[in-house]
């Protein structure tokens, strides 16, 4: 039976829905949950296809790196301005960024961007599908897990609950955000509506009466989220501070996430992915700043940098964390590419992040130091990074249920 609160909430939502609610009411609806303080927000980025961490965060201080990759290593940093565009951008005298990630260098220098290296999933699989699944479920080696770590990591909700607590950009709902808390997948904010108001009402009724409980729940979540987004859809969005998102799906995804967060519709978790990292062949072009990896990193770095700019001081409440299912072989393969490997790197970006540092223990790349004689060894579990962000940033201490069977060791990232 509907309670009074239910009724109030729904009539308020309905006002929002027909666009009759002023912006202050929308905000008030959500502010009521967290008086005085904005909720902390976690944005997770998945690089699908296994990014080559060793060419993203380049161990230029390691001789073995250059021995293992005679044709596709990123050259050591240089002071020669003419060559700087094709050499690693030094971070700390040992590691450097791929030159296409130049937009992220200032964020590292200003200590907003932290990097964790030799990190990843301890599961030995080299299957993209399994490894992505394990990283998104947060339970390496366990296939039976039904929900994703982001869904489990949501703090317990009190009071009014936004239908948009968990949002994923893209046509399908990724594993990481699935679970008992309703999660929404959308390609664009603008397209997230039924284009005929009369039909929308009928559909809403039909779905609420659907016999299949999964279908019924999906319908309910959908129409609640639609009501919430209607007001934003009418306001054109201009990124702040001249932030220039790159064209393409990933840049657009981050822009929509920025818009959602700034609209205060109750987003606490957001997910976006960027594919195309499976570089078995010709990873580098004729120069390190050219070719498939360079182009992808340029889009990736520009998008993250634009997000940072666009968000402005809202980044004080936001942390962005990036991951990829596994790294790639330390040695280049026969086709100027790399095959499936093990450990990788992760980026952590945010106003409250203790950046400007490469975290994690470097295992070395000498033959006896490599995992199974071929890959970068793992010294930090990805759940250490995610666990810390969940516990210290989102303030959810229940790491035992979020990462069952694992006890994350905090690195001091936030």
């Amino acid at each position: 039976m509907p309670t009074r609160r239910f009724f109030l909430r729904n009539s308020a939502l309905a006002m929002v829905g027909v666009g009759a609610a002023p912006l202050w009411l929308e905000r008030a609806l959500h502010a009521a949950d967290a008086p005085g303080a904005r909720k902390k927000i976690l944005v997770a980025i998945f690089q699908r296809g296994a990014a080559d961490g060793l060419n993203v965060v380049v161990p230029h201080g390691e001789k073995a790196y250059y021995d293992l990759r005679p044709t596709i290593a990123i050259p050591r940093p240089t002071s020669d301005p003419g060559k700087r565009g094709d050499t690693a951008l030094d971070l700390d005298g040992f590691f450097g960024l791929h030159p296409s990630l130049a937009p992220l260098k200032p964020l590292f220098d200003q200590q907003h961007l932290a990097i964790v290296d030799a990190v990843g999933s301890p599961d030995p699989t080299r299957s993209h599908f399994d490894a992505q699944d394990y990283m998104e479920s947060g339970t390496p080696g366990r296939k039976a897990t039904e929900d994703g770590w982001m869904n489990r990591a949501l703090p317990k909700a009190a009071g009014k609950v936004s239908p948009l607590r968990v949002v994923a950009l893209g046509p399908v709902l990724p594993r990481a955000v699935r679970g008992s808390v309703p999660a929404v997948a959308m390609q664009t904010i603008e397209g997230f509506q039924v284009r005929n108001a009369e039909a929308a009402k009928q559909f809403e009724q039909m779905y609420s009466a659907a016999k299949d409980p999964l279908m019924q729940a999906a319908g309910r979540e959908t129409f609640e989220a639609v009501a919430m987004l209607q007001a934003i859809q009418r306001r054109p969005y201009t990124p702040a501070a001249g932030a220039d998102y790159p064209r393409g799906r990933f840049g657009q995804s981050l822009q929509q996430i920025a818009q959602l967060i700034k609209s205060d519709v109750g987003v606490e978790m957001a997910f976006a992915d960027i594919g195309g990292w499976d570089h078995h062949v010709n990873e580098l072009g004729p120069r390190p700043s050219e070719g498939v990896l360079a182009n992808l990193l340029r889009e990736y770095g520009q998008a993250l940098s634009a997000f940072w700019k666009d968000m402005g001081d809202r980044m004080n409440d936001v942390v962005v964390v990036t991951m990829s299912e596994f790294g790639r072989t330390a040695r280049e393969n026969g086709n100027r590419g790399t095959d499936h490997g093990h450990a990788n790197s992760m980026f952590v970006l945010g106003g409250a992040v203790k950046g400007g540092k490469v975290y994690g223990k470097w295992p070395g790349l000498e033959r006896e130091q490599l995992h199974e004689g071929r890959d970068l060894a793992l010294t930090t579990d990805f759940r250490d990074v995610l666990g810390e962000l969940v516990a210290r940033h989102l303030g959810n201490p229940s790491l035992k249920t979020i990462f069952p069977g694992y006890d994350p060791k905090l690195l001091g990232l936030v």
Partner: protein
Amino acid sequence: MRNRVVLALAAALCLAAVPEISAYAKKKNAEGSRQFQKQLTNDQKILQALNRLTYGPRSGDVREVKSMGLKKWIDRQLHPENIAENPVLAGKLRTLDTLTMSGSELVRNYPTPQMVRQMVNGQIPFPADPDRKLMLTKLMQKYEQRQAKGGDAAAGPNVANAQALGDLLSSQQLRSMRQGTAQQRLAAFHAIPKEKQDDAIGAMPQGLRQGLFAIAPPELRRRLEMANGPQQMITRDLSEGKLLRAVYSNRQLDEVLADFWFNHFNIYLDKGADRYLVTEYEREVIRPHVLGKFKELLEATAKSPAMLFYLDNWQSVGPDAPQARGKKGARGLNENYGRELLELHTLGVDGGYTQADVTEAARCFTGWTILQPQRGGEFAFNKRVHDEGEKTVLGVRIAAGGGMSDGEQVLDIVAHHPSTARFISKKLAMRFVADEPPASLVDRMAETFRKTDGDLRAVMKTMLESKEFFSEGAYRSKLKSPLEVVASAVRTVNAEVDYAFPLANQVSQLGQPLYRKQEPTGYSNSSKEWLNSGGLLARMNFALQLADNKVPGVKVDTNQAARPDASVAAIALGSPEFQKR
């Protein structure tokens, strides 16, 4: 007439008296396995077969199956070679000429700008057809003008274009083209001398071209599309062909299986040379084998230029092979194909192989390569890059010096591995029976697989004769994929598809861009994958557009679906029931 549509909708939605069994409840309790024992009524059995073996029932299908007898109808679908194909389909496919071309013909007739340049420079031959040669030469001139201007001349009408059009058309014709009726516009275009028509198309401002496009018959439509770059026609034809076949083919199960197996042995169209290789791959490698021996299908994919290119095997070189050190420095082993062969094509990720098996398999396939992949390619074995050493794959020793037979032996080992029989059977059962098919059924299918040396028709038969297939546990338990939603909606309302590309775009919008799944996993077979809020909204919007006749190129007969019915159709097609099959 209206009644027919309503009846078709009712059939599609299964408005029978029996309550629907929810997939959720089934999974959550022990009730589940019992649901796979409960038999359907005879009418439900017919709908179940139509929903699973076709892209959705059309009006009249239930009657047809009833009069033929369900068993006989299924048997016919299992022998598509005995079913006369729908002549309407042949007519609609006729203009999609890339679908019948070989890889090298595609390269010549639908070249990239770079290739056109090589043709003009005499480095590679022009196509034989003089009209095509003329068209490509003109296209080249346009590229060069554009480059000379240093900008993108295609970005909208400009003064030079308008001038050029003025030279080609009289002011009377120009006026007809701009303001005339459909017939007048077409007449004005056809009044242009044939050799000048491509110039006229090139000179048309965007608006004029679109206006002409909307009313153009298929041949002219194609010429207008070609003006945007011939190489994109290959992609368009593939997607359009797939939609048209799904909607119109009489060999429905054959179409469903072609989709299933292409997805199982997935190729990403946008990976380099694969643009020119996928057409032949689907036609010659996948289609002929979907009801044949699994081993033959597997071997055909392994030797196809499309797969060799997609999973990089064509470049894999034995580290100690004679030619390992070439001009471009050391080349070596590439594990990509070896891994996906075991994980995705045969044993399955839990099928009991190790990293060592992956590497050893990859060694066996060194030298399996492609001659001239950028020119349409063909399979070749290059002894000089093959690793001649001894290998052990899945416990089987492969003696040194086997040459090309090393790879063939690997295919033989994996095709006959018990994990493969199980993995393939389970995947088929997930597509045709339920997301979590009962183990008893999978076991029986796997047994058939083993006994018949992987005869896929026999495996299908075991499944389609099972009580589990016709059980309440299976009935209406699957969520349709985007392709299935779009095709079944068109079939249900008996819409006429004149131009299928907008429908293919709808499938992309719903989350399943055709031939464009980048990962070798293919699209998920599980309902969960497609159930999310964004996807549901897209489905509702598609239903509205289709029923309101707003999907270009597709016409719902307004005699049958008059205004009041149109909205009924929209609501029905967007309903939760219609998303299931």
